[in-house]
């Protein structure tokens, strides 16, 4: 008995005694050039052709480099593996000249053949990549991916010499270069992938530490599931002199609340998110570490136009006009989203937005009455479906009440966990469903997904004129201004028909230590670690308790 007591005491001391404060991650990281990043959920894979989520993409950005990269502040195209590029006069051919200094992390040169092999792999039907559509800008790529042609040499990719690659575009598209900066178009190292039989087999070990060979600014050092993933400087990287960081530690932290606490205790240089309810108190902090910027992402409700009464345009518009977006944003959302009644996010470069849907309760009531539901009489009890999440619930509860107040319509809330929600939406098993979409700095990265045959368009919205605008006519013009005018017209149709009710534009909210510069990005997933640096002498940011 006594021995047991001693053992228990000793063990407890071991647990509790380890409680002495040490130097925090941030200060050690500042000094040694190690960046500690909150990175959302555990990366499922870091294979650039298989990944589809943003935690994965952020890691892959460090390990792989496509032909082009983007400036995190201006979103402008910058050199990646390609040191320069040329668009043919007829705007049909893009020629990329690869940097002769570009190397894999084992010292092998990165060649045009590497890209040719990698791109074939990425759109090979057997790999079943969910983001192969990025490649469809290349002539024939879509057919190859769908198995309509099985000869890759018929796809518009041509190796002119070991460091020159020519691509034939499917149509003249002024923003085609953006696609070649997506991480999904990065090359992978043929020999090491084949050594682990990973060409089209997902259950392969080629992405493990020790096996993985990449061409990005960093190389994979260590990966402990649910603990951390560490990358270190790649000594063979062509632009290594411009990399300030020695290493990056990605921490998988799925909860934004936890991330915030870790940031506050000096364990992270930057978080990915910040819970809404913490935002006001961070805004009030002196020298606030909070960085907020509008994102190229929309929050909206999809209406199932295949069911009555949502097949009536007047009902759809009535619902859309009865939402007081400004109040929603300024009260329960605490200005953590931007109230916006347009589908294309506010702040889209080069784009002249059509008039967004506003708050017009009188008109909404009139429309509803015209549709046969005066003062909400006889309106069926529709349900509003959203996936389980605090933010979605908040918006839904408030919108439900607004519809009740302004239209006297009762809507039922229905929350489902993610997978159930997805299958309900896909099978058209909903009336009103919460949706969100992350795009790029071009309107088509939103509008393209509302054409009648898009799998993302779950509303039943099918408008020939709209389809013609965003597909045929947009692809015929190579001129930016003309293109933007077409997109504006298309969005005007969309907002008039209201198959979806746009509610807000997302804002990125992240906490960044004062020692850290360059953690910036308006487009979801675009980090450019080349721009990130740490102040070696800076202290960790300190939370000031607010005055009571």
């Amino acid at each position, binding site marked *: 008995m006594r021995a047991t007591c001693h053992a228990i005491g000793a063990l407890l001391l071991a647990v509790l005694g380890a409680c002495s404060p040490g130097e925090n991650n941030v200060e050690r990281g500042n000094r040694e050039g190690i960046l500690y990043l909150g990175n959302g959920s555990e990366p499922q894979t870091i294979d650039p052709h298989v990944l589809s989520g943003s935690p994965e993409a952020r890691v892959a950005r460090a390990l792989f480099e496509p032909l082009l990269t983007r400036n995190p502040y201006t979103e402008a195209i910058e050199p990646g593996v390609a040191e320069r590029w040329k668009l043919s006069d007829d705007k049909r051919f893009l020629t990329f000249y690869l940097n002769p200094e570009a190397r894999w992390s084992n010292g092998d040169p990165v060649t045009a053949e590497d890209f040719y092999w990698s791109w074939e792999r990425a759109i090979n039907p057997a790999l079943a990549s969910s983001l192969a559509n990025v490649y469809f800008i290349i002539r024939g790529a879509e057919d190859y991916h769908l198995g309509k042609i099985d000869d890759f040499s018929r796809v518009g990719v041509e190796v002119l010499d070991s460091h020159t690659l020519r691509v034939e575009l499917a149509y003249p598209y002024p923003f085609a270069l953006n696609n070649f900066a997506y991480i999904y178009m990065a090359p992978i190292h043929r020999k090491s992938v084949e050594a682990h039989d990973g060409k089209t087999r997902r259950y392969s070990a080629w992405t493990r530490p020790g096996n993985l060979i990449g061409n990005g600014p960093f190389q994979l050092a260590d990966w402990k599931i649910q603990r951390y993933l560490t990358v270190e400087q790649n000594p063979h990287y062509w632009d290594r002199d411009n990399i300030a960081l020695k290493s990056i530690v990605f921490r998988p932290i799925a909860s934004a609340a936890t991330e915030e606490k870790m940031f506050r205790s000096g364990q992270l240089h930057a978080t990915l998110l910040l819970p809404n309810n913490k935002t006001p108190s961070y805004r009030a902090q002196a020298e606030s570490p909070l960085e907020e910027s509008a994102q190229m992402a929309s929050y909206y409700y999809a209406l199932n136009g295949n069911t009555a009464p949502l097949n009536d345009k007047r009902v759809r518009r009535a619902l859309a006009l009865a939402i007081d977006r400004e109040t929603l944003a300024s009260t329960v959302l605490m200005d953590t989203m931007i109230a916006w009644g347009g589908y294309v996010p506010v702040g889209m470069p080069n784009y002249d937005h059509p008039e967004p849907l506003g708050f017009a309760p009188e008109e909404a009531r009139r429309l509803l009455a015209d549709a046969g539901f005066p003062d909400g009489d006889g309106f069926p009890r529709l349900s509003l479906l959203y996936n389980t999440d605090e933010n979605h*619930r908040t918006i839904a*509860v408030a919108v439900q009440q607004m519809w009740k107040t302004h239209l006297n319509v009762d809507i039922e809330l229905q929350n489902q966990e993610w997978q159930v929600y997805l299958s309900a939406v896909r099978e058209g098993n909903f009336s009103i469903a919460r949706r969100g979409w992350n795009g790029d700095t071009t309107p088509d990265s939103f509008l393209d997904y509302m054409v009648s045959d898009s799998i993302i368009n779950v509303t039943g919205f099918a408008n020939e004129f709209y389809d013609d605008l965003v597909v045929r006519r947009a692809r015929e013009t190579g001129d930016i201004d003309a293109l933007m005018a077409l997109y504006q017209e298309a969005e005007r149709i969309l907002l008039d028909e209201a198959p979806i009710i746009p509610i807000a534009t997302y804002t990125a909210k992240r906490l960044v230590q004062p020692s850290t510069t360059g953690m910036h990005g308006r487009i979801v997933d675009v980090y450019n670690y080349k721009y990130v640096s740490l102040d070696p002498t800076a202290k960790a940011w300190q939370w000031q308790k607010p005055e009571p």
Partner: protein
Amino acid sequence: MNTNTLTDIDQAEEGRSLWQDAWARLRKNHLAVLGLVVLVTMIIIALLTPWIAPYSYEAQNLDLGATPPSAAHWLGTDIFGRDLLTQILYGGRVSLAVGFVATAVALLIGVGYGAIAGYVGGRTDAIMMRLVDILYALPFMIFIVLLMVVFGRNVILLFLAIGAVEWLTMARIMRGQVQSLRQQEFVEAAVSLGLPASTIIRRHLVPNALGPIIVYTTLTIPSVMLLEAFLSFLGLGIQPPQTSWGLLISYGAETMEEYPWLLIYPGLTLTITLFSLNFLGDGLRDALDVRGSKD
């Protein structure tokens, strides 16, 4: 001080019925009495909620937002400007209902199953109890999560799922009771009279095994309520617009630093209720002299 140890209980005075006796002992246990009073009050409040709630359940006031307790809102408001006291009152109806109904499900299955196994005995009993042993080994918490994921949330399923987990111990207790009662003369007399088994079980066995069943039921309710609260915390239990204490706590936990009252008051309410149930259960256990009812 005269300590009321187990030996004292054994020397129960004669001439009073078992129940009067138990009641006298229970009354001496201040904590148990307190628990009973709190519990009865809670139930009365829950029944009267639609008439006594200070505000309407759904009324929002977005411009008011979350405010700490005040004269107008005794327990404060949530971010929608809804009255927290009203939310807790309505949530209590759901939480208590889940607690009682799911326990009733467990009680029905467990008592029936245990009584049959104990009464019939022999090979049937062996097989039936082996099945209970097997079910004990399943990771039930995990199965409930899976069930809720698979079949989606609905309250009926929640009752059934929870009830299905909690009946096992009830069955074991009942079987033990019935086995010992069967040996007794009045039961053997009933058997020799040719009364059907169902009548014997209903008239003689169940009433006489009531003590342990009451005790264990009282102790099952709090664990059921905990389970419901936990499922709601995972987003798998009760869903809006309905609410429950577990759901209120899980919302409150998200904003506990900014609006601590949203966590503290629902948490306090649930904790007080569970304490009351546990005190009452322990008190009943002592009063009815039930030992080892929690195996």
